[in-house]
């Protein structure tokens, strides 16, 4: 690790449509979680939004004071944090932990909050009598339901779910993803799903943004991006993703490692690993261009990249 300023997320632009599920995909360190934490205004100490805007209901969250954010965070935009299901307090009853989180966010009595916790349990498919259980009495899938319940406690319209099914077994994964879909419909939520798993996005999201080294390199509806990708990184990543469907064959891997963001490569950040790199790629940062209805890409060769 080098010391210095890491520009974890740079020039990232996307819109989240009402009622859609948008996937944010990329490898570790590409800036998916940092993007989400910026939206929540919960960047870790030292982290700063240098410029840009985050517009929710015609208001720019970047300009909000911490105090103003309290009326927005959890109430308009909420988040299910990665791995938080394993961070439940083992010695406090699960329902109480949900109630506590409600009391923290809204001025309600403990009793009222507990009542709401029971309703939230039902909403996420848990038996409301289980509010008195301790975390160890819950399976991983059930604990993740609790985290989703907490995120929904103050009726947000936007939910960011960070790796919500990572580390869960596939059968449980399906159930959690189905729950998210169902809640999205029922509560007309707009959801941002962050994951490194391209197959999870393929099966659940309407649109997807692919991030690499702090940038969105491609964005569009899932069918366009997966079937007609126009960025060499997306193309390489998707065609080399092991699957139980399709023909069994050997994939070419992408050479090298993702860059260190304290000293990112010049020009296009993917150029050192890109099979199509040319001089322009080494010197000129590609613009993020609209190349089709709702399909955006940042590559000097976007017109040449075609799915084979």
């Amino acid at each position, binding site marked *: 690790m080098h010391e210095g300023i890491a520009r974890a997320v740079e020039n990232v632009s996307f819109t989240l449509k009402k009622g859609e599920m948008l996937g944010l995909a990329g490898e570790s360190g590409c800036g998916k979680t940092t993007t989400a934490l910026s939206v929540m205004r919960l960047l870790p100490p030292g982290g700063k939004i240098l410029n840009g805007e985050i517009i929710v209901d015609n208001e720019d969250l970047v300009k909000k004071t911490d105090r103003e954010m309290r009326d927005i965070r959890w109430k308009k935009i909420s988040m299910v944090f990665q791995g938080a299901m394993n961070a439940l307090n083992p010695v406090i009853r699960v329902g109480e932990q949900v109630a506590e989180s409600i009391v923290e966010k809204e001025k309600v009595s403990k009793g009222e909050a507990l009542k709401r916790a029971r309703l939230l349990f039902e909403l996420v498919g848990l038996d409301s009598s289980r509010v008195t259980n301790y975390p160890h009495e819950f399976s991983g899938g059930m604990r993740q339901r609790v985290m989703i319940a907490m995120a929904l406690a103050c009726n947000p319209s936007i939910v960011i779910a960070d790796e919500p099914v990572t580390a869960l077994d596939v059968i449980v994964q399906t159930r959690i993803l189905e729950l998210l879909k169902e809640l999205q419909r029922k509560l007309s939520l707009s959801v941002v799903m962050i994951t490194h798993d391209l197959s999870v996005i393929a099966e659940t999201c309407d649109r997807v943004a692919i991030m690499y080294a702090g940038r969105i390199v491609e964005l569009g509806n899932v069918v366009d991006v997966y079937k007609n990708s126009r960025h060499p990184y997306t193309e390489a990543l998707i065609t080399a993703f*092991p699957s139980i469907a399709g023909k069994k064959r050997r994939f070419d891997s992408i050479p090298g490692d993702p860059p260190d963001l304290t000293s990112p490569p010049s020009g296009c950040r993917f150029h050192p690993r890109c099979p199509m790199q040319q001089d322009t790629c080494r010197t000129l940062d590609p613009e993020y261009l609209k190349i089709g209805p709702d399909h955006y890409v940042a590559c000097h060769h976007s017109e040449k990249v075609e799915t084979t």
Partner: protein
Amino acid sequence: MMQQEALLCVENLSVWFPARRGATGILTREEQWVRAVDSVSFSVRKGEVMCLAGESGSGKTTTARAILALTAAKFGSVKFAGRDVLSLSKTELRKLRCEMQIIFQDPYESIDPRMSISEILAEPLEVNKVTRSRKEKEARVWNALEDVRLLPPQEFARRFPHELSGGQRQRVAIARGLVLQPKLLVADEPVSMLDASIRVQILNLLLDLRKEYDLTFLYITHDLAQARYIGNDIVIMYLGKVMESGPVEDVVAKPVHPYTRALVSNVPVPDPTLKRDKIAVKGETPSALDIPPGCRFHPRCPYAEEICRTKEPALLEVGDNQYSACHFNDRWTA
């Protein structure tokens, strides 16, 4: 399942851990066991990649540890290159371990951050007293680094783990597995911690090594897509028992056992135009302390009948080298 050219042959392997449950257990001195692995049999041909797959708690890692005699087996036998692993003396076992090596999941945990790469790779040679010659040691370390494509080797040998990326660390862990020139490499979720682009690099590396050295792999994974990419054969475990086994391609394309079918149907695929029906499975995997009688999948099986609750099904051949442990195999293959 016995085959002539089997390098590894596991028969009725059982690993039970003692557990005591509550006050009554102590009073009655009733023995309680966590049956982590229960009568597992399979064999691995020389030069093949055998995948051990299953969800968490299925006993796949414990099976592998018992094969390497890192965990004591309760019953059963493990034959490796004609020798009976479970009855060897300590010295014999130490010798045998040079021929069977293991790679772990987390390259941040499995290699010592205070040792240089050359020290990490030389350690197995020293522990097993392979050679005293410094020159030969160095040569073998460099060879191993070349094998895992950390080039130039003399440059990487000098480095420390913190100077390496996650993918490079896992290459070091693989090199450490190779430095003793083993016949069998057990890989326990070796790419699960790695990013997608690095994952394929490592999987391809393992496939290349297999070809170059005619290595045999026991590949442990929860990910059927990975198993299909790298494996020849697969054993699907559930709660310590083999549910189905056979060539990966067949098991994934036409699974027979209701559990395998549910599992396969729930694996997401990276193609938004493919809409697959997912088979719902009731409830959660029960605890290994409380294994259901009969077929252990019966409480969750959508097709369970009376016999499933009482009688344990045998693992029987259902296709070309494909085996399934279900009372109604005929129904699913008809």
